[in-house]
């Protein structure tokens, strides 16, 4: 009996120590839900590595004093259904922050699941940091208080891309090719609307939709591009859907320029190589060769750690923002942090950033870049060891990239 009491005493003391420690040091676990297998596996893994790397950096540099970030990965196989199971598993593990980027279809499902959960479980809310799913509807008609988008949305990108394209005199015949799901349809619609407005003389000679992450051979689509004499291809394709498209274009000797959102995603630079030089353009919130980029260590350390390129700056910004909001709120409670995120401003590697309160669409500059040989001046960093990298063509300032929103957000009661 005595011995038993002693054990209980020790156990009680230990538990007390652990509880006291927890007050001083909190761990914020972040569920990462993205494809880690299949055709889009490399893109998802690069995203995961970025989040893990940035979390490590945040812990080392103490971005939010007393708070440690830990990334908990889930492989959703790019399926909305699978993602909802992952979300449930994350909630069961008492995780309150979710990050995802690949696939608007998945993001939409997560937003639905999170809204429902938050409605039913006040005090146990989940906040969603979206680092790459860019369907404009998610910050317009379908906006919610729990969703924050750190990448620029598809309409903002297309506006910038077509402003640039409209000035290129050699563009006459445009071919659109996109993935057959919500995001691809948005790119298709925005491209048509913007081109008609800005360059009515341009003829749209082709408009394809193909299944997402299923096509392994694009040669027939490229044959069509050749047959229509397209001089320009506009595509929102990402991951394998862009790398394999470019591979097929290279194999068939297609002589057209590509205007893309995602030529910076894993696997695409390798396929472009020398054949893509001066042919491929990309619009994104960042690339390592932008003016005054000061994150040399970030890029180099990531490369030496994972032997991959640091590409997903939106993930870095999102964690910086989350840490900033935790600091501002003085709490890790999701509702307080979400309120603190609204209107948050900070200076990041890709420029000045503002989390717009009205729709939770982050406002930031956009950069259009072209694929060029490394010259040490305009192109310092190459991609995927190809000797080629992104050369900045033009910068779209944050206010020029901004678009109005139709979002009418319902907000929970502001905690006191």
């Amino acid at each position: 009996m005595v011995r038993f009491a002693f054990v209980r005493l020790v156990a009680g003391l230990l538990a007390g120590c652990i509880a006291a420690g927890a007050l001083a040091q909190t761990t914020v676990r972040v569920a990462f839900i993205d494809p880690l297998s299949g055709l889009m596996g490399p893109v998802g893994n690069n995203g995961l590595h970025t989040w893990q790397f940035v979390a490590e950096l945040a812990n080392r540099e103490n971005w939010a004093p007393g708070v440690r970030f830990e990334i908990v990965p889930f492989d959703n196989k790019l399926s909305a259904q699978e993602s909802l199971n992952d979300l449930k598993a994350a909630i069961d593990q008492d995780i309150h922050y979710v990050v995802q980027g690949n696939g608007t279809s998945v993001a939409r499902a997560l937003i639905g699941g999170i809204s429902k959960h938050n409605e039913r479980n006040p005090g146990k809310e989940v906040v969603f940091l979206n680092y790459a799913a860019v369907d404009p509807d998610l910050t317009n008609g379908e906006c919610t208080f729990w969703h924050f988008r750190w990448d620029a949305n598809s309409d903002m990108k297309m506006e910038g891309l077509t402003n640039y394209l409209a000035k290129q005199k050699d563009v006459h015949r445009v071919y659109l090719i996109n993935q057959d799901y919500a995001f691809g349809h948005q790119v298709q619609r925005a491209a048509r609307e913007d081109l008609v407005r800005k360059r009515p003389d341009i003829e749209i000679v082709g408009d394809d939709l193909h299944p997402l992450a299923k096509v392994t051979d694009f040669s027939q689509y490229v044959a069509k591009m050749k047959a229509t004499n397209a001089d320009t291809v506009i595509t929102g394709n990402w991951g394998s859907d862009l790398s394999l498209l470019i591979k097929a274009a290279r194999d068939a000797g297609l002589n057209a320029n590509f205007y893309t959102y995602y030529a910076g995603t894993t696997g695409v630079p390798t396929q472009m190589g020398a054949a893509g030089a001066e042919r491929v353009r990309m619009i994104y919130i960042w690339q390592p060769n932008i003016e005054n980029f000061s994150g040399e260590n970030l890029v180099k350390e990531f490369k030496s750690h994972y032997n991959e390129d640091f590409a997903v700056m939106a993930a870095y910004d999102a964690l910086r923002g989350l840490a900033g909001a935790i600091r501002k709120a003085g709490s890790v409670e999701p509702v307080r942090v979400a309120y603190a995120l609204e209107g948050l401003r900070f200076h990041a590697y890709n420029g000045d950033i503002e989390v717009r309160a009205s729709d939770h669409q982050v406002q930031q500059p956009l950069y259009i870049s072209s694929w060029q040989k490394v010259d040490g001046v305009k192109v310092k960093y190459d991609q995927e060891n190809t000797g080629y990298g992104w050369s900045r063509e033009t910068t779209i300032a944050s206010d020029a990239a901004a678009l109005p929103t139709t979002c009418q957000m319902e907000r929970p009661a502001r905690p006191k």
Partner: protein
Amino acid sequence: MARPARYACRPASVGGARLNAELALISALNGASYGLLLFMLSSGLTLIFSMMGVLNFAHASFYMLGAYCGYQISQWLGFWPGLVLAPLSVGVCGAAVERYGLRALHTRGPVAELLFTFGLSFVIVELVQMLWGRPPVAYRLPPELDGSLFTVYSVEFPRARGFVMLVAGLILGALALMLRYSRIGMIIQAALSHSKTVETLGHDVPRIHMLVFGGGAALAGLAGAVGGALTVTEPNMGAQIGAILFVVVVVGGMGSLAGAFFASLAIGELDAFAKVIDRSPADLAAALGAPIDPANPLYGLWSLTLSQAAPVLPFLLLVVVLLVRPRGLLGKREDR
């Protein structure tokens, strides 16, 4: 402010590609190279079926295994040794599966065998994921095969595709000659229809089964070693092509080698041509002078172009063939 409705499908104003001689020729070539790759797979599947009565669900997994073996050997010894050794190793795996798995189940009837291969396909996928991980591996054709073989009008036909056609053609020619003119070929053919008689004549029929199963697996492995390098090598590649494979075997007629050949090519060409035809039933109706009203509730379906429907066409063909001609193109009538 209401946002404009999304285009669920291609707006009618787009011209799209015109199917001229140039596009038709390049489509025919692309379709043939895909079709030949399919035949490398379906020939083994159909041979195994006709000899052993087993619909081998793991066949597409041998395809995937071939790609991974090819990748691994290419890392050690280079692409060309991999091209030879990968099919051999997959063939040995196949033979082992027959010898130590299927043979024991043979007395339990075809359902047990079918379930065995079905389970095996999952085991192979999991093993491959454990060994090589879930994302794709960087398995590529050697630089000698980069560049174009010849130019059709203005489209370059890639050397890589020519190579696939060459490999498939050579192997399948050799297979046909062997089956028709060699002694072992004759015994295999005899064992297909009269296995009891062949056994009575002193031939080891179980050993022939093992050879055929191993040979079929080796063909699938070769297709994988080539197809994986041409496109993408990842654990799901078998599941993707496996579905098409069953379409080929059913459409061609279960157990018919010639049927599998024609069905493979037909599905390759169907896929290639469907992808380049940007015309929908609505366009056809408009051309015939009876345009369909866009307000029609089914307009979305009618305006679906052939190119958008391309992924589903093989399966549509499967359904139609089963309804109209259940024994397939060249299948034997099932009077057993």
